[in-house]
């Protein structure tokens, strides 16, 4: 009988241990804090500006952008121009902040963000600038339908 109780106690201990383990495993993992730099991406945009009386201007914008702590967007853009000569323009450094995202408005899903930055006093002759040129702006989009 004593042996039976010992066996029963051992089985109960194993069951309890598994039960505790299962509860621990199914508990939600603590949410990791966002990395300082995340959502990093690279954009390349090529634009041809056709002119009536002079040669076409070719513009290649190279951008690296991302987010700081999943909160504030940032970007650095280097434009390169080519017409009679080729050179790079002022380097653009800026940030953006989403005031609201995915809001329901007039039956649409609406996003709105503001941005600010400056073109740095750099660049080749003919395309650069001697000044810090500030810029401000906003991006706004509305999407209707189920394909959001």
């Amino acid at each position, binding site marked *: 009988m004593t042996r039976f109780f010992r066996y029963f106690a051992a089985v109960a201990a194993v069951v309890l241990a598994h039960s505790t383990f299962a509860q621990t495993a199914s508990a939600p993992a603590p949410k990791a804090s966002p990395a300082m730099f995340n959502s990093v991406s690279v954009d390349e945009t090529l*634009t041809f500006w056709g*002119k009536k009386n002079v040669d076409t201007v070719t513009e290649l914008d190279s951008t690296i952008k991302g987010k700081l702590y999943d909160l504030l967007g940032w970007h650095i853009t280097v434009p390169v121009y080519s017409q009679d000569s080729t050179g790079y323009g002022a380097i653009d450094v800026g940030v953006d902040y989403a005031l609201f995202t995915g809001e329901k408005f007039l039956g649409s899903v609406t996003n709105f963000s503001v*941005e600010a930055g400056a073109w740095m006093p750099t660049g080749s002759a003919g395309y*650069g600038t001697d000044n810090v040129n500030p*810029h401000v702006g906003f991006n706004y989009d509305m999407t209707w339908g189920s394909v959001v």
Partner: protein
Amino acid sequence: MLWVGSYAYTPVFGNYNNYGLNAESFVAYKWDSLAVGLDLNQWYTEGSNVAFLGPKAEWKVSNNVDLNAGFGIPVWQEVNAANENSWNVTAGIGIKF
């Protein structure tokens, strides 16, 4: 919409300007990962302005790659004759890491 202060080169005007205002409006229809629509791209500066209108498409190729392309012709413009615009073509790629 973008406002640019001070003295900067703008290819659409082909020279330096004291300020600039750029507003882009894109009205599109979406099929899953593809958006096709009409794009109106307006530029203003001291005594000059131009607006391009034309088709544009954005395609989310995969979770981390986006493509876009568009074509525009001026629907109105007041630009010095030397830099008058006749068309523009743009193409872009975005890669997320």
